């Protein structure tokens, strides 16, 4: 009498189908994990912003004449026109949307490097606390870049200029 038990083959094909499904789901998840994440360019962007502000304040060994008088005094009206003097535009152009940038420039005289004698700031101040957060994954926080350099001012003074530039844009980059 022939023993023919083919039930095993049908059970095997169910397992094979299950493995195919696992592999397919795995590949789809891998692809979505990798390609679903956008490029985060905020660090480069914040650095470009800092460099632009630095060039606006001090270029070619000379400070901006709109910022400092020939006697070396800071002009207060530079604060009100900071964006236009440095050809910056933080306006998102949409209603009820706040700027995605914040920039702050502090000028510390060489006689007192702990106390800023002049401050320029523009943008959305709400991004600033993100710089203090100490977390492992900073991707959902704003990107902060801090740069400093020394500047010769008219009248012989030397200033330490500290530039803090912040780029929010969390949704577009994460």
């Amino acid at each position, binding site marked *: *009498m022939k*023993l023919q*038990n083919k*039930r*095993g083959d049908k*059970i*095997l094909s169910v*397992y094979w189908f*299950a*493995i195919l499904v*696992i*592999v397919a*789901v*795995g590949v789809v*998840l*891998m*692809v979505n*994990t*990798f390609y*679903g*994440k*956008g*490029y*985060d*360019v905020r*660090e*480069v962007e*914040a*650095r470009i912003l*800092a*460099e632009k502000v*630095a*060039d606006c304040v*001090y270029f070619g*060994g000379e400070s901006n004449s709109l910022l400092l008088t020939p006697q070396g005094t800071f002009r207060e009206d530079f604060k009100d026109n900071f964006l236009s003097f440095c050809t910056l535009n933080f306006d998102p152009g949409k209603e009820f949307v706040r700027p995605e940038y914040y920039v702050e420039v502090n000028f510390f005289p*060489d006689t007192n490097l702990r106390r800023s004698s002049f401050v320029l700031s523009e943008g959305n101040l709400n991004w600033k606390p993100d710089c203090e957060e100490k977390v492992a994954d900073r*991707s959902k926080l704003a990107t902060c*870049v801090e*740069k*400093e*350099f*020394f*500047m*010769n001012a008219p009248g*012989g003074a*030397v200033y330490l200029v500290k530039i803090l530039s912040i780029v929010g844009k969390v949704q577009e980059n994460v």
Partner: protein
Amino acid sequence: MYNKINSRGQVGETLTWIIATVIILVLVLFFIFGASLLASTKSISSEFRPSLSLTGHFIGTDPFLKKSLFTYVTLPSESKKIILDREFQRLLSQEGFAIDFNETKKEIILRYNRR
């Protein structure tokens, strides 16, 4: 007479398949984790790769250091130069700079003296 049905072979196969499924699951999870690690490299850093053809140290990506060095060479007061030099050494020892500090300083002094 009855038929003896030996199903031990079927049980052996099923066990093999269960183990294979578990191994495949573990591998797939491992690759998904790897994909998420690769996705984290999509954060573009501001440290550009230097050109392979450039050999000069002066050309680099630290305009802030260059501004500071230019301030240094144009300072009329020697005492302020010493203070600034000390500050550069402090920054060099703490954080370092993106480009070679000594070469850049030499180059800026050279260019300033040539003008």
